[in-house]
C-alpha cells in the first residue's frame, strides 16, 4: 500500500451560476465559476501540508471537495490509490474528516458533547453501548478536555474548547486524514497557540496526516511540513516549507510572503504590492497571474504553465507553475 | 433605462402567480357541494329545467373546457354575470372600487402615522422605558379582533362623541374622507402592532449600523445624521415591511366595510355569500388576489427605485 493517503489529479470544482428560465431557453451556457480548476496534490501519510492563498483562490473549495462536501466537476480523487467516485462508501467517508473555522457554528447547540460523540461512534460501530462512554471520555482526554464536558452543551464552552470538541468529533471516526479549514482563524492569539500545539501533539502521537488550510501564513509555517500556494483555483507553487520560505520561486509566492507583516523588531513595511484582487473568470488564457506579475513576459500571455519542478533546485519536491523558473 | 427592464422582468415574474390564482379561484368555486341549479330554481326545479339551466350556465361541459372559457372571459375583462341581477360582475366591482380605495389608502396612511413614529421612538434608545412602553402595544394589540376595534370606535368616537359618521360613505369627497376615517383608524389599530414590531426591528438595525457611527464621527448634528443617513434607510425598511403586510391589510377591509356598512368590494362579497351568488364570490376573490399581487409589485418597484443595492440588471 503506497504511503500516499489522499491524492488529487487534475481535480476541478466549477460552480454553475443560477440561470433565469429565459437564459436557459436561449441556450446561453450559464456563468460558471471555476473555483478549483485542475489541481494536482498528493498527501503522504503522517505529513502536514499547509494550503495558503488569499480569499477567492479556491483553497476552501478544494478542501470541501477533498472531504466530499462538494462533488468534484472533473478529475480523479483517490484514497490509498483506490479511486473514489461522487458517492462515497461509509468506509471512504470515515477516512477523510474536517475541522471547521467558526467554533459557534460547528457544534449542534441542541446536543450535549456526549450525545454527539456517542451518535457517531455507535453509528459506525466503533463502540458498543457498554464502552461508548469510556471511548468518548478517551477522545476528550486526547484533546485536553475534562471528561465532565460530556454532559454539557456547546454554549457552555469558550471558542478554544469548542474547537477541541470539533477535533475530538473528527478523530472519533479514526480518519486517515484530517482537513482543517481555517481551524484557528477565529481564535485569539493565545488560544490559537494552544490549538496549534494540540494539532502538533496529535501529529506526533497519532501520526496524523493533515491538510491545514489558512490565510494566516505565519501559522501555516509553524505547523506544516510542506506548503502549497494557491492562486485563482490553481496551485502555483509547492515544496518543503523551509525550502519555499527560504527561496520562493513563483512571483506570486514572493509577493505573498513579503506582504506579510513580520514580528522581528525593526522590520518595516516592504514595497506595497500593486493591483486589486482579481475576480474569477470563466476561462483564462495564458498564466492567470499575468495581470499582477512584475516579471511577466510575452510568453506568459499564451501558455498556461503546469506545475513542474524548479530548474536547478536540489529538491525535486519544490515545484512551481511559472515559465521563467521551470 | 434599466429600471424599466427591471420593472418588465418583475412583471413577467408576476404572471405565474396570476395563473396560479386563477386556477385556485376556479377550483374553489367548483368544490362547492350541491348544484347551483338547485339553489337558483329552488322548489321549481325539475330534471328538464335543471338540464336547461346547466346548459345556459355552461356547467355541463367538461371541467377543462369550463376553465378555459373562464380564462377566455377573464382576458376580455369579464368575470361572469351575477346569478341574481344578471349584471356583469366586473361592473359591480367597479361600482364599489371607490369606497374600497379610500379605505385602503386611509388604512395605509394611518397605519404609518401610528406605527413609524412609535417604532422610531422605541428604537432610539433600546431597552429604555419608552422602548418597553412601545413594546407593550404589540403584546396587547395583537389580540384585538378587527371587528371589535371597529365597534369600540363606533361607540367611543361615533356615538358618544359624534365626531365622525359611523356608517355609509357619503357623497362629496369631504364626506368620503370623514366617513372613511373611523374605518381606516380601525384598520390601522389592527395592523399597527405587527408594523410596530417589524419597523422597530428594522430601525434598530439601522441605528446600530456602523455608518451611523461614521456619520456621527463627522461631527454632524444629530438632525443632519438622521436626515441624510438614517431617514432614507428607514423609508426603504418601511416600504419592505408594508409590502409584506399588504395582504393582511387588504383582507381587513372586508371586515371593516361590514362593520361600518361601507359599500366597498368587501361588503359586495359578503352580500353575495349571503345569497350564494357564486360568480360574485369568485370574481371578488380573484380581484382581491390580483390587487395584492399588484400592490406587492408596486412596493417592490418602489423598493428597487430607492435601494441602489437592488440590482436593476
Amino acid at each position: 500500500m503506497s504511503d500516499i493517503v489522499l491524492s488529487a489529479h487534475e481535480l476541478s470544482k466549477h460552480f454553475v451560476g443560477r440561470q433565469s428560465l429565459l437564459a436557459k431557453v436561449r441556450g446561453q451556457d450559464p456563468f460558471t465559476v471555476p473555483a478549483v480548476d485542475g489541481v494536482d496534490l498528493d498527501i503522504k501519510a503522517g505529513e502536514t501540508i499547509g494550503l495558503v492563498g488569499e480569499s477567492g483562490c479556491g483553497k476552501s473549495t478544494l478542501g470541501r471537495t477533498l472531504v466530499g462536501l462538494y462533488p468534484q466537476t472533473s478529475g480523479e480523487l483517490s484514497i490509498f490509490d483506490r479511486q473514489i467516485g461522487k458517492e462515497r462508501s461509509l468506509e471512504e467517508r470515515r477516512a477523510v474528516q474536517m475541522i471547521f473555522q467558526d467554533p459557534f457554528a460547528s457544534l449542534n447547540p441542541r446536543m450535549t458533547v456526549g450525545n454527539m460523540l456517542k451518535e457517531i461512534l455507535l453509528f459506525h460501530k466503533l463502540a458498543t453501548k457498554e464502552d461508548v462512554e469510556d471511548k468518548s471520555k478517551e477522545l476528550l482526554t486526547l484533546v485536553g478536555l475534562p471528561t465532565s464536558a460530556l454532559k454539557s452543551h456547546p454554549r457552555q464552552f469558550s471558542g478554544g474548547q469548542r474547537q477541541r470538541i470539533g477535533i475530538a468529533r473528527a478523530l472519533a471516526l479514526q480518519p486517515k486524514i484530517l482537513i482543517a479549514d481555517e481551524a484557528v482563524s477565529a481564535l485569539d492569539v493565545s488560544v490559537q497557540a494552544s490549538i496549534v500545539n494540540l494539532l502538533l501533539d496529535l501529529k506526533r502521537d497519532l501520526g496524523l496526516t493533515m491538510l491545514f488550510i489558512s490565510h494566516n501564513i505565519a501559522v501555516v509555517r509553524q505547523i506544516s511540513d510542506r506548503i502549497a500556494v494557491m492562486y485563482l483555483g490553481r496551485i502555483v507553487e509547492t515544496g518543503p516549507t523551509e525550502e519555499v520560505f527560504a527561496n520562493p520561486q513563483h512571483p506570486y509566492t514572493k509577493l505573498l510572503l513579503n506582504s506579510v507583516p513580520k514580528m522581528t523588531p525593526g522590520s518595516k513595511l516592504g514595497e506595497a504590492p500593486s493591483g486589486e484582487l482579481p475576480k474569477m473568470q470563466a476561462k483564462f488564457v495564458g498564466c492567470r497571474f499575468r495581470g499582477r506579475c512584475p516579471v511577466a513576459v510575452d510568453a506568459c500571455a499564451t501558455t498556461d504553465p503546469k506545475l513542474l519542478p524548479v530548474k536547478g533546485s536540489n529538491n525535486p519536491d519544490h515545484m512551481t507553475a511559472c515559465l521563467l523558473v521551470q | 433605462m434599466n429600471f424599466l427592464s427591471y420593472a418588465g422582468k418583475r412583471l413577467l415574474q408576476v404572471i405565474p402567480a396570476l395563473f396560479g390564482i386563477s386556477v385556485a379561484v376556479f377550483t374553489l368555486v367548483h368544490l362547492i357541494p350541491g348544484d347551483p341549479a338547485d339553489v337558483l330554481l329552488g322548489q321549481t326545479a325539475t330534471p328538464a329545467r335543471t338540464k336547461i339551466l346547466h346548459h345556459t350556465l355552461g356547467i355541463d361541459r367538461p371541467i377543462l373546457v369550463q376553465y378555459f372559457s373562464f380564462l377566455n372571459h377573464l382576458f376580455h375583462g369579464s368575470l361572469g354575470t351575477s346569478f341574481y341581477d344578471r349584471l356583469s360582475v366586473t361592473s359591480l366591482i367597479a361600482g364599489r372600487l371607490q369606497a374600497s380605495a379610500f379605505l385602503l389608502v386611509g388604512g395605509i396612511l394611518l397605519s404609518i402615522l401610528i406605527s413609524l413614529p412609535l417604532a422610531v421612538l422605541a428604537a432610539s434608545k433600546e431597552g429604555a422605558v419608552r422602548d418597553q412602553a412601545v413594546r407593550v402595544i404589540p403584546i396587547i394589540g395583537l389580540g384585538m379582533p378587527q371587528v371589535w376595534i371597529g365597534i369600540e370606535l363606533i361607540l367611543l368616537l361615533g356615538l358618544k362623541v359624534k365626531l365622525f359618521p359611523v356608517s355609509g360613505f357619503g357623497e362629496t369627497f369631504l364626506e368620503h374622507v370623514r366617513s372613511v376615517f373611523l374605518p381606516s383608524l380601525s384598520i390601522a389599530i389592527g395592523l399597527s402592532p405587527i408594523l410596530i414590531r417589524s419597523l422597530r426591528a428594522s430601525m434598530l438595525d439601522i441605528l446600530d449600523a456602523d455608518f451611523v457611527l461614521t456619520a456621527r464621527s463627522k461631527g454632524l448634528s444629530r438632525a443632519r445624521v438622521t436626515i441624510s443617513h438614517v431617514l432614507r434607510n428607514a423609508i426603504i425598511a418601511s416600504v419592505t415591511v408594508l409590502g409584506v403586510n399588504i395582504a393582511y391589510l387588504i383582507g381587513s377591509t372586508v371586515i371593516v366595510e361590514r362593520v361600518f356598512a361601507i359599500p366597498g368590494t368587501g361588503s359586495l362579497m359578503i352580500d353575495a355569500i349571503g345569497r350564494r351568488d357564486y360568480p360574485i364570490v369568485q370574481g371578488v376573490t380573484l380581484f382581491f388576489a390580483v390587487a395584492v399581487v399588484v400592490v406587492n409589485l408596486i412596493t417592490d418597484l418602489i423598493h428597487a427605485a430607492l435601494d441602489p443595492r437592488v440590482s436593476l440588471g
Partner: protein
Amino acid sequence: MKAKNFSFYFGIGLLSFIVLVAAFAPWLTHYDPIGQDLLHTLASPNSHHWLGTDNLGRDVLTRIIYGARIDLSIGVLAVLFPFILGTTLGLISGWRGGWFDAILMRIVDTTIAFPFYVLAIALVFVVGAGPKSIIIAISLVGWVAYCRIIRAAVLVAKELDYVHAAKLSGLPTGRILRRHILPNVISQAIVFSMSDIVLSILAIVSLGYLGLGVPIPTAEWGSMIQEGQAYILQQWWIPTIPGIMVVIVGFSLSLIGDGLVKRLNK
C-alpha cells in the same frame, strides 16, 4: 433577568386560569348558556347576573365562559394541523430544494396572494359554516406561514458546519434531519404558533361576525360581538367584554411567545 421570567410565567398563569374556568364552566355557573329568560332581557349587571343579560335574557358571563371553550379549542385545533403540515413540507423543501421546492413555492406564493380573511371566507362558504369547516378553512391557509418559516430556517441551518459535520460522518439524511436540523429550527415554528393561535381566534371571531362562524345560538365570542353590536349604546358591555376576552387571551399568548423566544434560542 427577573422581569423577563415574570412576564412569561404571568402569561402562562393567565392562560391556564382562562382554560380552567372554561373547563369547569358547568360547576362555576348554573345558568344555561343558551337558556333564554325573556322576562329579564338586557338586564344591567346585578347580583344574579354579574355581567347582566343579553337581548334574549341569557346570562352574559355564562356565555363568555362557554364561549372560551369554543374559541380556545378551535383556535388550538386550527393551529395543530398547519403546524405539522407546514413544518414537514418546509423541512423537505428547504432540505431537498429542486423541483419539489419550486412547485411548493409556487403554491405558497399563490396562497399568500389571497388576503387571509378573503380566502377563509371563501373556503367556509365552500365547505359550509360550523367549527369543523372553520378549522379546515384556517388550516388550508395557515400551513403556508409555518412552511415559509421552517423552509427559511432550514436553508440557513443546512449551510452550518455542524450539519456538514453530520453529513461527513455518513449519517443518513433522515437522522440528520431529525436530530440535527429539526431541533434547531422547530423553535421558530413554536414561537410563531403562539401568535398563530391568536390569529386563528381572531379569524373565528371575524367569521362569527360575518355569520359564517359557529352557528347561533351557541355561545361564541364572535357571534356575541355581532349580536351585541345593535345594543351598543345602552348595554355597551355586551359586545365589548367578548372582545376584551380575546385581547386577554392574545396578551397571555404574546407573553408566552416572547418568553419562549428567550428560552428556546438561549
